[in-house]
């Protein structure tokens, strides 16, 4: 079976309001890159260089202002909102800020992506608890998310991104608040996802990435363009 992939074709992006204020350089220039399945691709770069924007574009949260993004050969960035919404069910996104809903319990936060899909309550609970157990969070499953520490919140967000076994995983600074052991645990989950065929894109400027994650490819983002890292 051919592996799926995410592909940027001459993709550029800038915020319209920034352009109107006279910003000369787009956030992302013409990017041509392929993020293949079964591989973990690291995107590195300085803070503010546009890594998060690139990941949001790959996850279908934003549309490129030029060029296109193809998922498994399909120009998803050009699709109508309704079709893109449906495609996004195949994407697991781990935000830089965790974006947890504080008044929901940890388990409820984790099962959020499962609700619009087929399945019932029992199935959601089972999947959610399994994922939490793998991230050593099952003891906290009934706690409101608002009461968690920063590291715990980040792992809950990771569980939420991975619980639906997505085909495309984009993770923005996924271990910023983790100790080594938890970071390795999360890295292991990302590796498992890649091994089952998923496209995994991780943005990090952590110089010690290889301590917790075995990456297969490394791209460096600078001046709005992606280059293979040396």
């Amino acid at each position, binding site marked *: 079976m051919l592996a799926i992939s995410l592909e940027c074709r001459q993709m550029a992006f800038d915020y319209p309001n920034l352009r109107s204020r006279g910003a000369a350089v787009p956030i992302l220039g013409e990017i041509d890159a392929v993020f293949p399945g079964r591989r973990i691709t690291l995107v590195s770069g300085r803070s503010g260089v546009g890594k998060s924007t690139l990941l*949001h574009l790959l*996850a279908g*949260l*934003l*549309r490129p202002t030029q060029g296109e993004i193809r998922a498994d050969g399909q120009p998803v960035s050009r699709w109508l*909102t*309704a079709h893109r*919404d*449906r495609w*996004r*069910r*195949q*994407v697991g*996104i781990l*935000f830089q800020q965790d*974006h947890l*809903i504080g*008044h*929901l319990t940890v388990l*409820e936060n984790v099962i*959020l*992506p499962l*609700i*619009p*899909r*087929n*399945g*019932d*309550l029992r199935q*959601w609970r089972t999947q959610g608890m399994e994922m939490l157990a793998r991230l050593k969070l099952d003891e906290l499953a009934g706690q409101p998310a608002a009461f968690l520490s920063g590291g715990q919140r980040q792992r809950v967000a990771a569980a*939420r991104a991975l619980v*639906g076994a997505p085909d495309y995983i984009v993770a923005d600074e996924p271990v910023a608040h983790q100790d080594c052991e938890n970071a390795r645990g999360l890295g292991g989950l990302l590796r498992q996802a890649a091994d089952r065929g998923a496209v995994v894109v991780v943005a990090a400027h952590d110089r010690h990435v290889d301590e917790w994650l075995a990456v297969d490819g490394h791209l460096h983002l600078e001046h709005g363009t992606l280059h293979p890292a040396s």
Partner: protein
Amino acid sequence: MTSNGLARILWAARELRAHPGSTLAVMAALVLLTALLAGGLLLSQALTATTARLLDQGPDLVVRRVSPVGWQPVQVQDAALALAVPGITAARLRIWGTVKTPDQTVTVVAADDAAMRRMALPQTLHPPAPGETIAGQGVILSETDGRLALQGATALMTRVAQRFPSNSDLATYDVVMLHPRDARTLLGLAPVQASDLALSVFHPEEAAALMPDLIRAFPWPVHITTRLDTRKAYAAAFGRRGGLGSLLYLPAALALVLLAAAVIRQQMGDRARMGLLKALGWTGRDILALQMAKALLVSLPAVAAGLVTAYGLVYGPTQSWVGRLLLGWQTTPPRLQLDAGYAAPIFLEVGGMLLVPFLAAVLAASLGLASSDPQDLLNRGG
């Protein structure tokens, strides 16, 4: 319903449970609004129908003799004049009037032996003997021994021998039935006189057409009231009272607008969360379904509760508020045995009147959220 559909509804309920204050506030407002609107409509409908049904049992035409100084009694032999008019099938001489007791004003009416024998009355009711009365449930006896003092053209002390049954309150609540001789004495009528003439006609719907013949039949001026006139008078009286009630509709409509605005504002405040849900794979349709499920979970039971409350207020044991607030009773009001069977159309009307704009407001606000890009929502929602 599929297990997934049920689970989604559970999730909508879970979201509502996370904001119990605002959920309960919206529900309480809807309950009040519904009870107010449905109660008013149901009461008006039931009163109008019950009144019409009872008035249909009464005379088709009432003829009173009038003079420059007011109303004049008719003579017993005047009934024959009415019966001579083609189309008149029965003429009943009525002896009745309004008199005072120490505590209230009551309507006195003379027992009509023939009518009481003819009609299917409860076995326990017998025509009153001289000095005795049959009193309605609302006639207050200030005397401890069951005597009732009446003051009309003359004064009369009577003994309440029987009471009209409470299920006939609408007809008899403050009515006192006397022996005809006592009634004439009390009302200042001679033995050959009566208060007026109640007529039955062959075709009730053509009663008004007989009026020219009737006025020619009597050698003195008359005032004729048809059943339709009486019905109109009651409808007008309800209308005057209902007019005050209908003023409540304006603030009710305003409250509904404010309610919808509050719901929309709350939904707009949910932008960031909706953006997150979209980022996590919820489609615009999923979000629309969630918002509508939440709106239905709030509005349907609230409107249902308001409708049931309205029904209880009109037909339930707390119904006495109607008499006290709307019908002018200072003492215990009569138990209104209102006709049933009008709830379905009124519930549909009020339910639609409140649910449609409420759900439309939620739908309109949700459509905007559902069609936005997730990043926009996340950014704008803060």
